């Protein structure tokens, strides 16, 4: 149980390594070993999507993957969406300007999920498509409407 494994992967464009037990989830690895606290855990059962990160560009539940499974892959977390001291990225600015967050807890996962969606729907698509895309991320504050508007705004599409 306590045997440690070396994990080497790329996170937000930077090569990172860690020594963890095989049972450590990717979410805990990111938070506790790499000190990337922007990935949030809200159910640990894979239902709420609040821990979503991008693995090779696709959203995954980081609570359902072990860190060792992510070895060799390229990850993007919310910390990778903007320079820590620079201006907010396009999606972040759109959430800011459209009331896309309240408590902010699901926000990193929403941003990453929206990021993945806009890669395939650069024109924003329909409201229904946006809602379909974020359906796997639970938000208890917003009722989703301002999140949909934010994603639409990021795509430059009229609401």
């Amino acid at each position, binding site marked *: 149980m306590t045997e440690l494994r070396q994990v080497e992967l790329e996170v937000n464009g930077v090569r990172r390594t860690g020594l963890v*037990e095989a*049972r*450590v989830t990717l979410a805990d690895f990111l*938070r506790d070993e790499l000190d*990337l*606290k*922007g*990935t*949030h*855990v*809200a*159910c*640990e*059962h894979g*239902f*709420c999507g*609040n821990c979503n990160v991008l693995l090779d560009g696709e959203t995954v539940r980081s609570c359902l993957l072990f860190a060792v499974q992510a070895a060799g892959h390229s990850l993007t*977390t*919310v*910390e990778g*969406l*903007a320079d*820590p001291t620079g201006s*907010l990225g396009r999606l*972040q600015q759109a*959430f*800011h*300007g*459209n*009331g896309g*967050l*309240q*408590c*902010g*807890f*699901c*926000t*990193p996962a929403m*941003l990453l999920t929206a990021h993945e969606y806009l890669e395939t729907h650069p024109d924003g698509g329909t*409201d229904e498509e*946006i*809602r*379909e895309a*974020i*359906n*796997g*991320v*639970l*938000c*208890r*504050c*917003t*009722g*989703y*409407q*301002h*999140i*949909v508007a934010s994603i639409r705004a990021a795509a430059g599409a009229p609401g």
Partner: protein
Amino acid sequence: MSVAEQDPNAAKVARETRGGDAPRRWLGKSVNRVEDPRFLRGQGRYLDDIVLPGMLHAAVVRSPHAHARIVSIDTSRAEALPGVVRVVTGKDVVENAAPLPSFGAGPIVQDMIAIEKVRHYGETVAAVIAESRYLAEDACDLVEVVYDELPVVLDPVAAREDDAPLVHEALGTNTAYERTFSFGEVDRAFAESDRTVSAELYWPRSTGMPMDMNGAIGDYDPGTGVVTIHANSMNFTYFLWLIAASLKIPASKLRLVPVVAGGSFGSKFFMHKVPALAGFLSKLVGRPVKYVEDRITHITANDHCGSDRRYEASLAFDDDGTFQALRISCVDDYGAYLQFGTGTHGNALSQIVGPYRIQHVEYSLAAVLTNKNQQGAYRGFGAEVSNWVLERLVDLAARELDLDRVELRRRNLIPAGSFPYRTPTGNIYDSGNYQGVLAQVLEESDYEHWVAYRERARAEGRHVGIGVVASQERSVFSSTEFWFWFDDPQFTPTSSPESASIRIDPTGEIVVTLHSQAMWGNSPETVVSQVVAEEFDVDPASIVVTYADSQNALPGTGPGGSRYTVMVSGAVAGASAELKDKIRRIASDKLEVAEADLEFRNGAVGVVGVPDRQLTLAEVALTAYLFRLDLPPDMPSGLAAASVYDHPLTTLPNDDRSDLGIFYPFVGHAWHIAVVEVDVETGSVSFLRYAAVHDAGTIVNPRTLDGQVIGGTVQGLGTALFEEILYDEAGRVLNETFERYHLPSALDAPKMTVGHHETPSPYTAYGIKGAGEGGRMLSPAIMSGAIEDALAPYGVTITSLPIRAEQIVDWVATATGEG
């Protein structure tokens, strides 16, 4: 309303902030939230993000039984696991702690770890402290607890019978509280009215279910004896000193550090178990200990879930539709403990007649204990339930009279000229324009179009229904609602203050310090920044907002009951006024002009009409801090002010409780209209139109208000359609994960419009009313009305929630003879 009843300081603030003809510069604008950037970067610093040097982690062993005597606990195997520091049980609590705080009456004792017996599934029986959370959870599996199972009592009606198993033997009954309140002449009004409708109604137990769970870090300093608790909620004025008592330390040696919360919705309002446990564990081991619930613990045993009520309710009215009297009898299943007493019903009594001219009200309550997790606050605090009951009765009355539901409501609305309006319970509604809000929602929803649409759709065999409901949204509670239940209450507080301090530093930058919980998804920093910007005409994004820890805090009650925006605005306005006076005096001296000729503009104070005669705030501040000999001789150095703002308008109940006094007087008003289509094959419900119009007095920020309305509405949809904590016959929670506890997702939520109507409160700063709970006050009622209307061909009457898809299919099958 006698002016003498108003708090004089609050009355002064209300006068000074009323506003003249000049448009407001910052209030009322949808400025971007100042909180957002750090959360958008994943730098929110939630509780679980905090790491202290040498910090340990705790996990808890939860009871697998709903009711059982604890025979023995063997911790030896757990303690032998490498990395485990200590296993803590009820024995440690007996020796080193006192019971958890409670506002309930009688011997209903709750401990941070169960002693002798467990009273609900998931109750904590032991806590493991270890070097990591993984190890702590490993060790939980090694703690061996022997239980002697006891008969469970889950049905609150059965719990009232003489032979029912007792949840608390010392109480001698499971009925913790029982009383009937009568306002007006209820029997006579029922006898003399032309008609009555009655219903038995059930509102299910659900919970606020924030994404971020309750958590705390205890950090005991053996040198000073101070226990520091970082917690993602804890209200200083009401609860902090009670937690200190549980930890058996002087309140002066408990330092609470507020940490932002990823949502509360009531579930963190009286967070008592988690911070007390974290503080206690740290005190035992002398190192920092973090304890954060996991989702299963949150669902089964969080600090408190929402109401669980069975009603018998009747409305008496005349043939012309005039409402006369309301009679409500409620058995409320409080679960195993009674933290809040029956305050959630006090809340209901603040607006029990809704926006209608009902003169006579009888309200009976039995608060019953069962083997479930305890009940407490959930967005609406019990008033959302009573609004559902009232609006159900009104819909039934419309059906009885064969009268349009809008028209019936319109006939009974309190007229615009009758404010402040005293309701039968004694609480007042401060101001309103209900007919105006109704007219606006009918227009914005295009109601007549949808009525015609529904008729066409019905002719085509489609199941389209319209829901129309109104609601009050009381805001800013007074403490009296926690105790006016009792003839002889043991403790009768009347305070619910809020404070703010403002410091302009020597460079002219503004720092505002708040004195209660940190942000939990509301936008306190934005509200405060907009108010300060309004007063000083500075950029709200330039203002720094911080939170005092409890050892440095002024009185503060925090968010809850839609009070915070009203109260903190009053406090900020008071502190601003004091600071502005000082700035004017300094500037008046330096610019050699009368104070009355000065104005605040764009980060400066200057002479009205003379753009180049001004001093920047930085110039004034530098003088205030560093040039004492330039100041008026009686003026001390510095540029800071603090203000404590009390409830603007509250009075005591009378002795026999036929008048509960004024306890929740700033009352918003709202209407929602929803058009739904029901698929009777699958039971699914889709939205064709959802329109809301809210009057929350003066609006601080329309976009954030929209966010609260929409979010609350969708949360109420969850209550209406999906959410219920399910217990099996042994009292085990059946849906303890999100797999089976369904929260509304993006595809479940409607796209809605939110209209605003502004009737300022005459009593509050700027005329603001609270508005954080309104959405959830309406959507359960509107879904009931809309789905019932869609299923009208089948004669369905909706009397319980949630309205599950399988229930809809079942109703239709039964009505069509296929059941």
